[in-house]
């Protein structure tokens, strides 16, 4: 066995579907106990990567370990210590909440099953509704049930595939508090894919993948700093009308709306200044340079890499 400093340590991970390369030789090393965010446009290969890591897809190339086990040959051992939460709710909607938890506990052969399920129901606050069918739960509750079910066997590694898609902000916040508790108190390593910037900002590190390749990685400030992006904000009543006029101007790489505010970004400060110069004197507009936000950086990454949208 390897030293346990990295919960996930894979190199050259590759997956092809026919002629299409979904994941193109990526390296990921996640130290134990950290929470990593996995970002990228739809169809960029996030789900495929996660599925390869937990043995659901056979990798065409690549080597390395998950939890110290060879991820290609010791899939069974990895499965026992990994919790995987799928993008779509994948527990049994025609089983009750309790029956779902009970089934999971039986499959993992967990001792003292009844007590464990009771405790989990209590922790979830679902004791009163334990005999309700899982399919009748709302999106937020389904997500909480899924998280509880896939951590029932106290895994060391948690792979979460867009766990908060379609869940309200309060439930998302609670979910992330739970993730940080799991990682902080139980030392669980988490790899979570998401499209939400606020969630990405709660991660220790971010990996950005586009068309099967990792195009950026690091902490949030690192990624922003390395983007080389210069951003001006334009505020004011008529800010929105400015967008079509600025678009296509040399030096303006992209324009994004943030509410009533406009983010105008590029790589060359002089050219950007030049583009904005005609509007500097407009009394209705306030133009100033700011630090690019993570979202600006991601839009840039997506545009630069022609990220596949499906």
């Amino acid at each position, binding site marked *: 066995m390897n030293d346990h400093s990295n919960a996930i340590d894979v190199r050259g991970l590759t997956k092809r579907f026919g002629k299409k390369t979904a994941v193109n030789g990526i390296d990921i090393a996640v130290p134990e106990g950290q929470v990593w965010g996995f970002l990228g446009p739809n169809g960029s290969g996030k789900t495929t990567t996660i599925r390869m890591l937990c043995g659901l897809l056979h990798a065409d190339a690549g080597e390395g370990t998950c939890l110290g086990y060879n991820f290609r040959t010791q899939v069974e051992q990895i*499965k026992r210590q990994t919790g995987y939460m799928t993008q779509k709710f*994948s527990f049994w909607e025609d089983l009750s909440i309790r029956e779902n938890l009970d089934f999971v506990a039986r499959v993992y052969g967990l001792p003292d099953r009844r007590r464990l399920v009771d405790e989990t129901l209590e922790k979830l606050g679902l004791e009163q509704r334990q005999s309700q069918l899982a399919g009748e739960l709302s999106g937020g509750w389904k997500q909480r049930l899924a998280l509880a079910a896939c951590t029932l066997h106290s895994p060391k590694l948690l792979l979460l595939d867009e766990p908060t898609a379609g869940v309200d902000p309060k439930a998302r916040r609670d979910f992330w508090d739970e993730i940080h508790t799991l990682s902080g108190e139980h030392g669980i390593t988490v790899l979570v894919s998401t499209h939400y910037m606020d969630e990405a900002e709660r991660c220790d590190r971010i990996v950005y993948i586009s068309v099967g390749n990792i195009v950026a990685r690091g902490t949030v400030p690192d990624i922003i700093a390395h983007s080389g992006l210069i951003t001006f904000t334009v505020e004011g009543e008529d800010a929105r009308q400015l967008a079509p006029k600025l678009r296509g101007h040399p030096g303006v790489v992209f324009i994004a709306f943030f509410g009533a505010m406009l983010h105008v970004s590029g790589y060359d400060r002089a050219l950007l200044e030049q583009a904005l110069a005609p509007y500097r004197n407009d009394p209705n507009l306030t133009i100033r340079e700011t630090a690019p936000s993570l979202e600006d950086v991601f839009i840039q990454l997506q545009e630069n890499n022609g990220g596949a949208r499906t």
Partner: protein
Amino acid sequence: MNDRFSLSRVFAMLGKEFIQMRRDRLTLAMLVGIPLMQLILFGYAINMVPRHLATVVSISDPGPFSDSIVAALKNSSFFDIVKATNSPAVAHRMLDEGTASFAVTIPPNFSRDLVRGAKPDLLVEADATDPAAGAYAIGAIPTLVSSALRNDLKGPLAARAYPAAPVNVVVHQLYNPENITRYNIVPGLLGMILTMTMVMVTSIALTRERERGTYENLLAMPMRPTEIMIGKITPNIFIGAFQSALILTVARFVFHVPMIGSLSLLAAAGMIYIAALLAVGYTFSTVAQNQMQAMQMTFFFFLPSIMLSGFIFPFRGMPEWAQWIGEVLPITHFLRVVRGILLKGNGFIEIWPDTWPMILFLFVVGAIAVLRFRRTLD
């Protein structure tokens, strides 16, 4: 390493499957409803030897002989005499109108010719728009008539009794002398209903998990393919056994199908047959991407099963290539086994030639099912 085959995981899977089955009321109702509906349809509604066919007799020569013939026709239960007339025209009109399916005409001078030994004609006209409907009834007439007249031709006329029907067509129906369709159909239904429900229910086993996205979850857990398969298949064995018991009970007490042979031998053969069908269903379920495809595959298997097995058409009447396909299908052999055991009282030695092909089928298809099962989502 405790990732070897685990009985407790099988039980976990079984528990889940039984709960899900219990919740799926519609499917459960269908599994009971299909056998009952088919039994009633085939047992009652569809009668391949129609009886009580409306018949008109046109008698141009009344007398004791014609009385005997009419009485014999009536007693045979093939014919219901709806009208007796002395006008052939009336009889024809009734045939035209469809108020009678048969017209039996006793010509003038019938008695005289009969007594003289001149072999008078007895005209039987049948409405042949549905040729199958009257075939058995027509076949029965010569025998009915000659045996009826035999009673009348006594004393000095006794010499006429036998030459009256010099060529006696002997139709000797073994095992089912009265040609009761349901003796043949009801045991056949056992094979057909099991083919339909077993393959259908099993073919959606994995497909449903795949379609609902729960398959991914199942695979992410430490479950082995054999554990999943046993967990998925076992509840269906119970269903199959239950359906068989239901069909046989109705066959025995409602349709009075004779059961001469050993029921435990039938149960053993039935188990092999059910296992072979489950293997087919499970193979489909490893291939089908959604439940619609699973249904289509089921029907792809079901159609030759009913057409080429001898259930609908007499097996020996089919072209040779069709017989070869029929021989591969487990239902063909199972039908022979069921009819053999129930109607002929066959034992193990007699049914073995039709048992080993089912076992062979089970192992070949079962191997395909296990090989096709993928442990990944690839």
